[in-house]
């Protein structure tokens, strides 16, 4: 091995970090920036939850609250989640492919800058005289037109959303091109790691849906500032169709990559090959295709769409999702499960996302959605997909890959506490919302009347939200601790299965000095299996008694 790793062990300066064309720097910058916005969006959520803990207005007024939920939603779902998955992918897809670098690194860098600039533009609305946008994260017309919502904060929102999502699109193009063109020798499409496949499905959706949001934001901007684009009657339905055509694939874009990452974590910590690889890949592609035909399940109450059609397509989503769950469980079955922190978060993902998925089937039924739509039932449902899914999956990925990125381990003890707090916190915060919504509590309200008896459940939910805050602070402490005194991780602290574990931690500038042969989607596992087969043969040659004690001796005949 050459001395290459020592180069990147030096801490990069901020300027280097933000101008480098190394995919690892771009990926890391994007991920860290997105986590910053996650924290900011979380603070807004805490402010909302504090106001909602009791009936009556305590410390916010309606106008402030309306800005808060708009900016919380926008920040989390547009400025945190899509960028964070692009950041992780920009870092890890080339490594998993055995590539030295990303294709079109300058495009990716531009994508990062557009994202950062756009996100700051959205947030700068808070500094304007009229405050930030206050029209919910979906900015329905005509509420978002210049007559109903005048003010610069709104224009900054439109502009910032467009810029940041253009950034996401450019990052995505660069990752997609890398997958097409930079796979290591021997890595056929069906030997790509699951995470890379989940990114293929994700990026297909990005390529279809993101141009639509750019166009929609352009039209909204013209409508606000130049001339009416959307007419009063049908125009508001057209806007909703355009918006959800983007925003439904969006919610899968921020979920799929975590299915891939969690799948790899489960395989790694079950010490076996991911079960059902081919069918899972197929199901992801099917899922992506279906994602473009379900958007109007957000519009069941508009009398402007065919509810039966969209109910059918939306419920069918359960089929590919079910296949993925089968694969997760099939991987654990008869594995050797090692409960390290990444695996704990992965199991949290499996259990909590499931609540979101099953309640999703529920709201895909128009008669049920007529009640649940725009109530706290829906808020609970999508937080189980976004928090239970995206955030738990993200932490599984972060705990899994942190040693690779920094060369140091995180504390397992702190990680276990964080995971436990997050799990309990997620139940405590969002389960009461199901009950409240069912009982008639609408979303997007700063207050509710005392006579409803909703105080107790709301207080529980607020307590849960503060537990989540403590969990994130533990994570911050964990990272800081690891930078100071974390043990060195070595190239492969977990017994990884894919190529990123075949190089130093952190990887040198061009990633690999030497690539192992790629004969399946788990090349490092292949090597390990070969080794234990060899050991067993050696053991058999040496005498039967020894062989029976060696773990590999329990191996079944390969199919």
């Amino acid at each position, binding site marked *: 091995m050459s001395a290459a790793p020592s180069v990147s062990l030096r801490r990069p300066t901020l300027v280097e970090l933000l101008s480098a064309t190394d995919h690892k720097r771009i990926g890391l910058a994007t991920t860290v920036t997105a986590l910053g916005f996650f924290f900011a969006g979380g603070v807004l959520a805490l402010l909302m939850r504090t106001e909602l803990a009791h009936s009556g207005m305590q410390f916010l007024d*309606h106008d402030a609250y309306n800005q808060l939920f708009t900016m919380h939603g926008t920040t989390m779902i547009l400025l945190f989640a899509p960028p964070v998955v692009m950041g992780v992918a920009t870092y890890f897809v080339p490594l998993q492919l055995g590539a030295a670098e990303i294709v079109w690194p300058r495009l990716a860098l531009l994508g990062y800058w557009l994202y950062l600039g756009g996100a700051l533009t959205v947030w700068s609305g808070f500094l304007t005289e009229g405050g930030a946008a*206050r029209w919910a994260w979906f900015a329905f017309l005509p*509420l978002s037109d210049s007559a*109903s*919502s005048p003010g610069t904060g709104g224009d900054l929102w439109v502009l910032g959303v467009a810029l940041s999502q253009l950034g996401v699109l450019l990052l995505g193009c660069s990752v997609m091109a890398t997958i097409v063109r930079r796979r290591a020798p021997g890595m056929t499409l069906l030997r790509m790691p699951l995470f890379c496949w989940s990114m293929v499905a994700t990026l297909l959706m990005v390529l279809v849906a993101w141009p639509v949001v750019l166009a929609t934001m352009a039209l909204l901007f013209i409508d606000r500032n130049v001339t009416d684009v959307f007419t*009063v*009657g049908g125009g*508001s*339905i057209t806007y909703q169709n355009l918006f959800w055509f983007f925003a439904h694939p969006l919610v899968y874009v921020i979920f799929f990559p975590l299915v891939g990452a969690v799948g790899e974590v489960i395989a790694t910590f079950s*010490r*076996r*090959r991911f079960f*059902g690889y081919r*069918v899972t890949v197929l*199901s992801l592609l099917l899922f992506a295709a279906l994602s473009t035909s379900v958007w109007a399940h957000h519009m069941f*109450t*508009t*009398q402007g*769409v*065919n*509810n*039966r059609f969209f*109910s*059918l397509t939306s*419920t*069918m989503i*359960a089929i590919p999702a*079910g*296949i993925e769950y089968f*694969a997760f*469980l*099939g991987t*654990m079955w008869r*594995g*050797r*499960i*090692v*409960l390290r922190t990444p695996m704990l978060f992965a*199991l949290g993902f499996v*259990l909590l996302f*499931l609540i979101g998925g*099953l309640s999703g*089937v529920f709201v895909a*039924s*128009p*008669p*049920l959605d*007529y*009640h649940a739509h*725009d109530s706290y039932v829906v808020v609970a449902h999508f937080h189980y997909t976004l928090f239970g899914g995206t955030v738990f999956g993200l932490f599984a990925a972060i705990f899994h890959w942190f040693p690779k990125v920094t060369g140091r381990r995180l504390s397992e003890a702190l990680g276990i506490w964080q995971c436990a707090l997050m799990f309990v916190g997620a139940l405590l915060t969002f389960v009461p919302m199901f009950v409240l919504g069912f009982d*008639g509590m*609408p979303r997007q309200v700063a207050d509710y009347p005392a*006579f409803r008896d909703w105080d107790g459940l709301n207080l529980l939910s607020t307590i849960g939200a503060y537990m989540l805050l403590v969990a994130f602070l533990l994570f911050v402490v964990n990272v800081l601790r690891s930078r100071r005194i974390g043990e060195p991780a070595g190239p492969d602290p977990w*017994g990884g299965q894919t190529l990123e574990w075949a190089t130093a931690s952190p990887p040198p500038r061009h990633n690999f000095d030497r690539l192992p042969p790629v004969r*399946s989607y788990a090349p490092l596992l292949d090597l390990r*299996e070969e080794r*234990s087969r060899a050991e067993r043969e050696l053991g058999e040659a040496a005498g039967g008694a020894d062989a029976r004690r060696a773990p*590999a001796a*329990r191996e*079944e005949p390969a199919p």
Partner: protein
Amino acid sequence: MSDGVGDIRREFTDLFDVYWAIGVAIWLLIAVLVVVFVVRYRARGDDDAAPAPGRSGNTPLELTYAGIVACIVAVLVWLTFSTMDDPGYRVTAQGLDRGEPPADAELVDVTGARWNWRFDYPRHGISEIGTDLRVPTLTLPEDRPVTLRMTSLDVIHAIWIPERRFKQDVFPGRTTTMTVVFPDQGFWRSGGQCNQFCGLRHAEMDFDIRVLSQADYDAWTRERGR
């Protein structure tokens, strides 16, 4: 309860019970499997790093399983569609849901405007509107379909009546309709609420609902009407 009108709340509950039971059963099943697998297949200290034997898949098994999931989906979709064909929904949900308001339904024209509601009873010359101090009251006859013809003067609003488990959006420049049937008399404070975010005081855009016997309703329309 008059025949053929249907009780949408009961139909909602019937459908909900099925979805809820299936959902809880699936969640418990998977949660139990996860726990059992973790306990049963937990690595013992010494063979921590050794690979477990693993197959890359079992396609016939997985496709069979996918078929089972598809059957559950088919059952749910069928239940949903047949609920939408039930009398309650045929009466209540209109537009592309293909329901029709009954010909003898009472009629109320609903106008939403930030942040208040107006209810006009065209057949009786009654107009009810809220003030800054008092939310309006929607007065309805018991056990009789009442069609709300709804429109908005500014942005999108929506009417949600949680007691009836139903809501519908209210647009500017468009008319949407829903038909409500309250089987019993009663009074629901803030029983209807705006359910599409519409700006500053959206949270307070409620109305009360009062359901009277047909005789009381007739008396009320005579008294209030011109």
